[in-house]
């Protein structure tokens, strides 16, 4: 299978700081690729080069067989790389439907004038939410009334609806409770089955093991290679994330609970 996006030897320097020191990862359609790493490992910098926020200092991005040079996030979104950030980009006071179509409002013409097509927007929103397993009271329900997990799901559904081929999820489960996490992971599974490449950033190995097809651990701007499901144990991933021995001693004192 051809990778949909191939990041080759990506380096990113911020002044004298080397945030990424040559990272190579392939992402495949229909797979959930987990990107693991501790804070400061370079996960965020890496996905921001993918989504056009940062330009890589060195290295190339091949998307659907073509080399890309994203100038800003708009270009990568247009190409089909969508990112759902931790802070979600949802507006609590606005309705789910208005949020869903924010920036992509459907238009119908009346007397030659362009109007927001609320009927269409409401219908699509209700359908998409139902498909994701969220029951809305109505499309005019404010996003503020949704739980954190439901908001994540709305954001994911929105990205998928507007044609994402690569969906980057930046720590989607880090602020959620157990049940909400399960819902978001189920959503990731649904999205993957639609043939979308999911890039799942997390530092929680259990969440990664639950949905991941491939696992890449970043540490201090480098990767230790990519493992596929079944090749690697959670303990090995945990060790790689912490950079080996340090965690062994840490884990000893905590009785292996980390």
């Amino acid at each position: 299978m051809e990778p949909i996006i191939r990041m080759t030897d990506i380096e990113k320097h911020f002044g004298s700081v080397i945030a990424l020191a040559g990272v190579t990862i392939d992402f495949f359609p229909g797979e959930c690729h987990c990107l693991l790493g501790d804070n400061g490992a370079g996960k965020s910098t890496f996905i921001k080069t993918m989504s056009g926020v940062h330009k890589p200092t060195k290295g190339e991005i091949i998307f659907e067989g073509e080399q890309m040079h994203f100038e800003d996030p708009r270009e990568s979104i247009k190409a089909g790389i969508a990112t759902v950030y931790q802070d979600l980009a949802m507006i609590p006071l606005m309705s789910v439907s208005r949020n869903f179509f924010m920036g992509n409002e459907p238009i119908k013409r009346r007397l030659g004038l362009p109007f927001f097509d609320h009927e269409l927007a409401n219908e699509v929103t209700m359908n998409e939410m139902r498909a994701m397993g969220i029951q809305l009271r109505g499309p005019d329900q404010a996003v503020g009334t949704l739980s954190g997990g439901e908001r994540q799901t709305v954001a994911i559904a929105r990205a998928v609806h507007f044609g994402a081929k690569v969906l980057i999820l930046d720590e989607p489960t880090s602020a959620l409770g157990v049940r909400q996490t399960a819902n978001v992971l189920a959503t990731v599974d649904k999205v993957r089955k639609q043939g979308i490449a999911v890039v799942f950033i997390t530092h929680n190995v259990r969440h990664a093991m639950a949905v991941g097809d491939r696992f890449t651990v970043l540490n201090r701007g480098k990767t230790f290679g990519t493992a596929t499901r079944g090749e690697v144990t959670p303990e090995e991933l945990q060790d790689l994330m912490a950079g080996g021995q340090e965690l062994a001693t840490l884990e000893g004192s905590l009785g292996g609970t980390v």
Partner: protein
Amino acid sequence: MTDASNRDERIKETSSLRRAMIRPELGGIVGNIAVFTFFLLFAYDSGMFSSQGVLNWSVVSAQFMIIAVGACLLMIAGEFDLSVGSMIGFAGMMIAIFGVTLAWPMWIAILTTFVICVALGAVNGFIVVRTGLPSFIVTLATLFILRGFTIFIPQTLERKTIIGGIRETAEGDWLGAVFGGKILKGFFAWLGDIGVISVFESGTRAGQPVVDGVPMLIVWAIGLVVVGHVVLTRTRFGNWIFAAGGDAQAARYVGVPVERVKILMFMFTAFCATVFAVCQVMEFGSAGADRGLLKEFEAIIAVVIGGALLTGGYGSVIGAALGALIFGVVQQGLFFAGVESSLFRVFLGVILLLAVILNTYIRRLITGER
């Protein structure tokens, strides 16, 4: 997965009453019912509800509405404009300078004033967007700058701060009539003939109705309210206004041109202030350097009574118009009822406080915060 299994059993069904509660217009509707009930009970005989009385408070309400529409859309977009009052004075003075002092044709004077004032609105917006400073501070500066020029320019040119003679200059001018004229004159004459409204009993205008038409000021107010409401709720741009005020960063993530939306709203607010000013100078026939004092705050209060949140992202043009109507009715109603007019200020303060408390409560209902 069935629908039932997904329903969160902890979310209570909301009653239709509760849903009706979480409308931004609620405060305005309740307030209007209260105000009209009050004056119908206590001031019915004062002439407040005769044709002249209705015209009187309608005109005052319409003035409030015109500036409230602009302030409303701007507040929903997340910004304030404190320079509205100064802009009113400034715009009126510009028309007088161009039309009377420089003796330009009135329509050129009016159009030039619109261009200057809307450009000043754009400058307000540009500075706010570019510097990231609170619009409160930026437009507070504009408030003083414009007021200063409004006094300085006529004093320098004419050695006075009130310039008259505008009505004479505007006589027969097509654009002057768009702001200072009246419509439906035939209809009102007919109403007078059949005895529905009162007519002059003697004098040169005997037999003509006392109220001989609907002032263009009211037409402008209704027009701006309708256009503002439709744009806000029924267009893509309206969604961007909500988004820009709700969370500018989130809006930018999905490609909403937040800066452009905000600058356009500052321009629209300036446009509304200029409409107010033109109607006012056409009605009075003069421009004064002290015109429009405190109007910015009255506009903001009307908007808040109308249910908009001071923090942006939520509100209603219809609500703001209802807030303006409360103002007009109370301000003039107190006069008709023979109550000391300074109490209007007391009323403003009290109702503002009540409205803000109600809005905060409603926001909690919407977002489910506790």
